[in-house]
């Protein structure tokens, strides 16, 4: 475990990520002010002891909005990653373990989904069933499926040729058991790394969808929605755009640093200079 902590970027990234998650979690039980509370006379206040990050155009406390918005972003991204893992990993493992027509079907399916950018999928979904955080989750989740299917299959393929897998097969284990007992535990590190990267992409996707009005709807808030609300006033009150914008940047950087660090730290093969197995 010591080797984990020898990567300073990993430590910084993880700590920063955890801080943001903690702030988001805290918003569930406490924010300095309720975020639905609109109080026009106190709008456009500069940061002060009362309002740490000032107030927005409707007099809402920016610090509270950022806390709550960060939580929305994490939640949407995390559930979307869970959807991707839940559906994509079994597909990828099945492709690796069974091969043949199963593999062909899985690969073509992932090609098909890959062909549509996440935002297009999201626009399609929201056009069909209306905008909302849930739809953003589904759209981003669908986009995550082929990513995890590919990673799981790629990782599993390189392990499937190793001797201990052959030994398991000789001992009479079926494809499903091999995938479950031998392949899955050995690609966990890959999945964790990919998970953090997809988290940061998910947060960006959620911000993007909310920004164009297809994601989170008021009175709930998200960082993307805050950007959207503030953009008309960018020239007069740039602060209102900077706060959520910087929050997104910092969260994404934290996740990416943590992801890069994890990749370096967890996977021994990377350190042996053979990164191709990850592709």
């Amino acid at each position: 475990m010591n080797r984990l902590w020898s990567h300073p970027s990993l430590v910084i990234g993880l700590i920063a990520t955890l801080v943001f998650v903690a702030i988001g979690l805290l918003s569930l039980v406490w924010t300095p002010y309720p975020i639905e509370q609109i109080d026009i006379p106190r709008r456009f206040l500069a940061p002060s002891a009362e309002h740490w990050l000032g107030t927005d155009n409707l007099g809402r406390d920016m610090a509270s909005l950022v806390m709550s918005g960060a939580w929305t972003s994490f939640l949407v991204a995390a559930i979307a990653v869970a959807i991707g893992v839940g559906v994509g990993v079994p597909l990828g493992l099945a492709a690796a373990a069974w091969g043949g027509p199963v593999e062909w079907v899985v690969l073509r399916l992932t090609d098909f989904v890959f062909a549509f950018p996440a935002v297009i999928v999201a626009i399609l979904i929201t056009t069909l069933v209306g905008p909302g955080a849930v739809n953003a989750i589904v759209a981003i989740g669908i986009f995550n499926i082929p990513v995890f299917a590919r990673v799981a299959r790629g990782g599993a393929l390189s392990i499937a040729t190793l001797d201990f897998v052959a030994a398991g097969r000789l001992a009479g284990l079926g494809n499903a058991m091999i995938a479950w007992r031998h392949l899955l535990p050995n690609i966990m590190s890959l999945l964790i790394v990919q998970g953090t990267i997809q988290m940061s992409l998910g947060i960006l996707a959620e911000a993007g969808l909310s920004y164009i009005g297809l994601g989170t709807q008021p009175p709930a808030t998200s960082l993307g929605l805050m950007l959207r609300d503030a953009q008309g006033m960018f020239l007069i009150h740039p602060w209102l755009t900077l706060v959520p914008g910087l929050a997104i940047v910092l969260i994404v950087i934290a996740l990416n640093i943590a992801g890069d660090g994890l990749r370096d730290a967890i996977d021994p093969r990377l350190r042996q200079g053979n990164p191709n197995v990850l592709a």
Partner: protein
Amino acid sequence: MNKTIKALGLALMLTTAAGGMALAQPTEVRIGVALEPPALDPTAGAAEAIDIVVYQNIFEGLTRVDQNGAVQPGLAESWTISEDNLTYTFKLHDGVTFHDGTAFDAEDVKFTFDRILAEDSVSAHKEFYEPIESVTVIDPLTVEIKLSRVVGNFLFDLGRGDAVIVAPESAGNNANVPIGTGPFAFLQWDKGSRVMLEAYGPYWGEPVSLSKASYVFIGDTATMINALLAGDIDGTNNFGQEALEVFEANPQFQVLVGTTEGETILSTNNTKPPFDNLKVRQAMAHALDRQAIIDGATYGYGVPIGSHFAPHNPYYVDLTGTYPHDVEAAKALLAEAGFPDGFSATLKMPPLAYARLSGQIIASQFAAVGIRLELINVEWAQWLEDVYANKDYDLTIVSHVEPFDIGNYANPDYYFGYDNPEFQALIETLNGTTDDAQRKELAVEAQTILANDAVNGYLFELPQTGVWNAKLTGMWQNSPIEGLVLRDIKWTE
């Protein structure tokens, strides 16, 4: 690390405000407008966006409304009204042609009104013209309109976008290729982007100084700011008030603050429980804090209203005190109505900044009395379909921009679903009255009934805050009728 950098680039939403002006084009004007019209036929749709493009530009009526709201001669150069106020005889202008070259005469007038009054009429406001008994062609330049009952506001109604004169040869196609008699002819419509008009050479009236005008559709304020600053557009008739400050101090621009006929209201579905209960509507009226809504949604430029009437109208009476902001009274009324814990409802908001902002503020104010609102953003076409046509809504926020549109409340099939025989009788009397003092009395009574019944949540009169290139003159500061009249706009040096 590459990913991090890419992510950074995606996350930073940089707004570049390009400075400098494009080369001055002394005869062409490009105007930014927020909404794209669904079609271009003003006689077949209620959307203001249609009139913004075509009213008095492409199409003209027998009369026209000027920028003070007064009635001026249009295609009719003069008229006489009979003693009993039932027969109007119009003398038409000579030498008027439609943009397709066909001549305008009394037959076109007759065709226009027959079309409005037909069984299968597509007019959005047939009720204004429904008192017309007959339209008779006396000679090619004289037309007589007989009414079945006195209509006090008839000449004004003739000047509305709903009554512009169309030709039988082209009327069917006006939605896409509008052909009228106005100073500007339709050039092209790049759907989703812009509509272009060009000056019509053989125009019968005073020639206009612009040679070309385009309406560019820009939905959001940030893009509008950039387009103005970069000189991509020369002005806009109604700019988001949140960013007016950007232009107020800039000598390259002029800011025109004026009034409109837009009563912004929290429209309420009066036929749907619990809104059919007067106490519930009164509670909602008590829950509204108008000043906060005006400050939040219009940055203080809106004028509070207590009924469905424009404050600059001489018949206006201030009823904003009917149900003052009072959270306790609202809660008590809700409890009396059988909702001690409040209730849940939906609020559908069309894509207009004032509606979306007011909606959030109202949701917060209603939450204080226990009414939980679910905010639903809808697109404009969806709003017209679901809310306006199918009445599938609880609450919505919209500005009613037609002049003197209090008469809509006398129509039980209007999307409010307000059915009050007393009010309907009153409006009928009002429409049949020509004496000004009496009309005022009746109008005040009508406003008071609506305020007391709390039919809708009356919020504020929409301001018109135009931002224009400082070298342009002739724009209307106020908007007494829906439209953006290009006639007098010109460049000065």
